[in-house]
C-alpha cells in the first residue's frame, strides 16, 4: 500500500518540478480483488493494484489537472507539464479561490471511526472461494442457480497542497451480492462493509433463495397505483437520484429540483435526512476534494429542505447571488468535488433519520390490505428533472401482498414516479440500515411503505 510519507515525498518532488503559483495533489488507489460467480461456478476472478496522483496547478485564476499512475521522475515531470500546459492557456477566472490552507481546511468537528480492518485487507482468493462454495451449496439445496460477487479492497485517498494542507485516509471494504435464479423467478441480496466480519454471505444467500422460491410462477397484475413496501435497496436506488441536487451549485445553475423549494414543506413530516460522514454505518474520508473537513449537515428536517451543501467557491458565489437569504445557511461544508469540475459539490454520506415508531418489513406487510413488496429496482432514469419523475423496473423478488400476507410473486412492473410525491406518501419506515444497490452510492436508509406508487406497465417475466 502507498503510505502517507511516500505520498508526501512524491508531492515534494512534484512541487520542485512546478512553476505554478499553487500546486495541489490528490493521491488515490489501492489493492482490490473480486470473485465473481454464475451458474454455480466461479467464472471470473480478478485482482489489481494501482496508485495514482492527480496534479492541479494554479496560475493566477487559471487551473487544470493532470493524472498519472507512474511516480518516476520523468512521469512526474510530464504530469506537471501537462497540468501547467492546460492551465496556462486559459482566461483567468476571478471566482477561482486560492487552495485552502490548513486553517481553512478545518478541523474535524467529530471523530470518524476507523474504516480500515486488517481482516478485510488480508482476505485471500481461497477465503472468497470458500464463501462462494457455501453460497453455491445453498443454491443447490434449493434447486436454484446462483450468480454474484464477493469482493474486498484496501484503498487510500490523500491530499496535499502547497499551502501546507494535508489529509490522508485509508479504508477497507468488502461486498457480497447474490442473485438466486429459478426457471421463472429470482431473488437478490447485497451488503457491504469496511469490515468483512460484518458480512454474512450464507444468511444473504438464504434470503435470496427464499425470495426466488416464493416468487416462482409469478402472476400478472394490472399496472396502476399501489401501496408498495420498498426494501432498503429499492429506497436507496430511488432516493439516490435526489442528492446531487442538494448542492449549492445545482441551485445556482438552476438545474436542481430544489430551486424555489427550500423552506416550504416538500416531503412528508416523517422525512428527515442529514449528511454525516462520522455516522458509524457510513464510509469514506472526512475531507472533500479540496481537503476541507466534511461537516454534519441537516439537509431535510420533518419534510422541509433546510439547506444544501457547499464547496468553498460555491459558498462565495451563493452569498453574492439572488438566492442568498432563500437557501438557508451558506458556508463551505466540506462537500466539494476535486477542482475543476462542473458539478460543484454533493452530499455523499446520506443518513435517513430513524422514525419515531420504526416497523420491520414483516410488520409493514402485515398491516397492508393490498400492495406490492419490492426487493430491488433496476435501470432507474430521470424522466423529468424538476418534478423528479423517475422511471425504472422492479427486479429479483416482486410480490403481491393481500390481507397482511405475501400471496405470490408477480410479473415485474415499470414505474414512473415522482420522487417528491413518493417522499410525501411514506406511511411507515424501518430503522435505517447501511444499504448498497446498483444505481446510487451506499447510504443509510430505511425500508418504506409508500401509498399510491405509480406502476405504468408490466413486463413479461
Amino acid at each position, binding site marked *: 500500500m502507498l503510505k502517507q510519507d511516500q505520498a508526501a515525498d512524491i508531492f515534494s518532488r512534484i512541487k520542485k518540478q512546478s512553476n505554478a503559483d499553487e500546486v495541489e495533489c490528490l493521491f488515490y488507489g489501492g489493492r482490490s480483488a473480486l470473485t465473481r460467480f454464475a451458474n454455480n461456478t466461479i467464472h471470473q*476472478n480478478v485482482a489489481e493494484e494501482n496508485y495514482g496522483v492527480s496534479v492541479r496547478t494554479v496560475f493566477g485564476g487559471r487551473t487544470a489537472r493532470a493524472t498519472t499512475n507512474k511516480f518516476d521522475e520523468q512521469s512526474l515531470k510530464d504530469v506537471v507539464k501537462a497540468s501547467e500546459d492546460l492551465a496556462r492557456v486559459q482566461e483567468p477566472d476571478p471566482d477561482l479561490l486560492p487552495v485552502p490552507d490548513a486553517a481553512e481546511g478545518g478541523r474535524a468537528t467529530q471523530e470518524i471511526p476507523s474504516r480500515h480492518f486488517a481482516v478485510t485487507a488480508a482476505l485471500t482468493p481461497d477465503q472468497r472461494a470458500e464463501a462462494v462454495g457455501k453460497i453455491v451449496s445453498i443454491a443447490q439445496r434449493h434447486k436454484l442457480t446462483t450468480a454474484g460477487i464477493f469482493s474486498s479492497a484496501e484503498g487510500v485517498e490523500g491530499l496535499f497542497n502547497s499551502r501546507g494542507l494535508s489529509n490522508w485516509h485509508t479504508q477497507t471494504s468488502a461486498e457480497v451480492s447474490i442473485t438466486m435464479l429459478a426457471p421463472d423467478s429470482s431473488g437478490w441480496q447485497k451488503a457491504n462493509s469496511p469490515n468483512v466480519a460484518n458480512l454474512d454471505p450464507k444468511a444473504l444467500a438464504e434470503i435470496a433463495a427464499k425470495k426466488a422460491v416464493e416468487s416462482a410462477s409469478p402472476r400478472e397484475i394490472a399496472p396502476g397505483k399501489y401501496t408498495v413496501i420498498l426494501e432498503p435497496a429499492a429506497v436507496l436506488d430511488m432516493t439516490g437520484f435526489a442528492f446531487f441536487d442538494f448542492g449549492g451549485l445545482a441551485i445556482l445553475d438552476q438545474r436542481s429540483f430544489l430551486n424555489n423549494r427550500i423552506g416550504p414543506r416538500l416531503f412528508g413530516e416523517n422525512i428527515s435526512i442529514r449528511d454525516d460522514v462520522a455516522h458509524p454505518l457510513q464510509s469514506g474520508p472526512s475531507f472533500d476534494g479540496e481537503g476541507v473537513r466534511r461537516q454534519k449537515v441537516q439537509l431535510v428536517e420533518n419534510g422541509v429542505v433546510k439547506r444544501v451543501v457547499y464547496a468553498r467557491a460555491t459558498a462565495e458565489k451563493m452569498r453574492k447571488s439572488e438566492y442568498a437569504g432563500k437557501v438557508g445557511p451558506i458556508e463551505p461544508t466540506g462537500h466539494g468535488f476535486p477542482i475543476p469540475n462542473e458539478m460543484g459539490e454533493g452530499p455523499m454520506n446520506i443518513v435517513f433519520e430513524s422514525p419515531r415508531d420504526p416497523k420491520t418489513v414483516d410488520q409493514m406487510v402485515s398491516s397492508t390490505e393490498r400492495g406490492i413488496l419490492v426487493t430491488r429496482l433496476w435501470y432507474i432514469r430521470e424522466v423529468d428533472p424538476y418534478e423528479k419523475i423517475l422511471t425504472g423496473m422492479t427486479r429479483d423478488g416482486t410480490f403481491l401482498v393481500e390481507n397482511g400476507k405475501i400471496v405470490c410473486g408477480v410479473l415485474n412492473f415499470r414505474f414512473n414516479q415522482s420522487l417528491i410525491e413518493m417522499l410525501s406518501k411514506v406511511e411507515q419506515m424501518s430503522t435505517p440500515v447501511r444499504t448498497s444497490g446498483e444505481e446510487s452510492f451506499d447510504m443509510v436508509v430505511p425500508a418504506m411503505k409508500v401509498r399510491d406508487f405509480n406502476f405504468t406497465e408490466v413486463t413479461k417475466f
Partner: protein
Amino acid sequence: MKELASWALDTATQRGATYADVRVVDERGRALATKNGKIGNASDSRSQGFNVRLMVDGAWGFASSADLGRASVDATAVQAVAIAKASAKVKQKDVKLVPEKAVTAEWTTPHKIDPFSISIEQSLSLLQKIDAELRSVKGVTLAETNMNFRREELWFFSSEGANIHQTKFTTGAGYVAYSFAGSEIQKRSYPNSFGGQWQNKGYELIDELKLLENARRIGEEAVALHSAEQCPEGAFDIILESSQLGLQIHESVGHPIELDRVLGMEANFAGTSFLTLEKLRTLKYGSELVNVVADARQEHGPGLGTFAFDDEGVPAQCTPIISNGLFTGYLSSRETAALIGLERSGGTLRAESWNRLPIIRMTNISILPGEKPLSFEQLISSTDHGILFQTNRSWSIDDKRYNFQFGTEIGWEIKNGKRARMLKNPSYSGITTEFWNSMDAICSRDEWTLWGTPNCGKGQPQQVMGTGHGAAPARFRKVKVGSAYKGT
C-alpha cells in the same frame, strides 16, 4: 513489451497455466469542458499497466499491476495462478476455448489529425464560442460544452503465440443548453445528448460536426420547449431520428445478443436476456426491413466498436444479428462460443483498460439502411399522422431487455406529411420484439450515421466501454406514447 510478456507467460506456464495471455495498455486522455463561459474541466490523464489472464485446472485467474518491472510481472503472474486455483474450487466443468489462429499484427485507427497535436487554445476557443452562442439566446439558463480525446496503445501476447499491437484514437464533442422557467427544466443537446458524438477518429471529427453552426438553433429550441404542448398519450406512428434509433438498438438489440448475458454470466448485475438459445434462427425479431449487424471491421466505419483484433486476439468480424427480421446471431467470445457449439468466436471480447478483465461488449451494432432510396423528408411526407422523436433524454429497459421506455428532448407532431407543432416531454415505450416488428420504413444510406455511445456500463467490477451504432431514421407503427407522465 514482448520481453515483459515473455516473463509473465513463462511464469504462468511454469506454474501450471494451460493457457495465458498478457495485455499491456498505455492510455492517454484529455477532457475539456466549459460551463456558462468558464472552464468546466481541463484535465489530462495517463495510465499504464498490464494484466495476466490465465487458465489453471480449467478455471480462470486474472491479476493486474501498474508496475511493469520484472519482479512485479512475475508476482502478478504468480498471483493470477493462485486466483485461478481458487476459482477451480467452485466449478461445474472445465472452461474450453474455441480455437483461434495466433497472429502477429499491427494496426492503428485511421485518422487525419492526431487530436493531441492540436493546441489546447484552439479547442478551448471553439468551446467558448459555442458556449457564448448558446448563452446569447434569451432564456438559456445553463450552457455546457465538452471535447474529449483518447489515445490507447494496446499490446496482446498469448501462450499460443499471438503478438498484436494496436493504437486507437477516439474523439468526442458536444454541448447542451438548459432552460429553467416556471416549474420546468428543458434542455437540448447537439449532436447528441450525454456527451455528443464520439467516433474512432482524429480531430477531423470536430470539423465535421458543424458544432458552432448549430448552437443558436439548439439554444432556441431549449427555450421554445417551454411553450410547446405536452406530448399526448396514446398509440401513434412514430419516427425515430437516427441517434435515438442508435440508442434503441443499443438497449433492445445490442445488450440482449450478448452471449454472456444469455448464458447467465451477468445475472447478478446487468441481467440476463430474453434471447434464449432456442430463439436463434427461429425468432422473428423484427419486420422484413430490419437488418442488423455486429460489425467491428474498419470498412463499417469509424465506430467506437471498430478495431482490428479484440482483447483475446480474435480478428474483427461482421456477424449478421437480424437478417430480414430473423434473429441470426449473438455476440460471442472464445469461451462462450465453445459453450454453444460455435466453431469460432465472433471477436467481441474487450476490456476498459489494463486493470479489467475482457468481457463481451458490443462492437458496432448497426441497423442497415433501407435499400430503396428514402430521404428523411420523404419519410416525413409519407406519414399521415405521427410523432418524430429527437435526441435521447431518458432510457430504461428491464433486465431481460423486453420492456423499454425512452424519453427524448424534443418531439414534433407530424400531420398530413408535414412537421407540425413542437411537443415537449415526449416518451414512448413497448416490448422489444413487438416494437421491431412494427418498423415499416427506414431511410437509405444518405441518412445513415454511425453514432458513438461512450458510456456503456457492464461487468463487476463495472467497466465503461464505447460502442458504435449505425442508424438511419425509421418509422414504427402504433407505438405506445406518453406513458412516462401518465398518472404522475
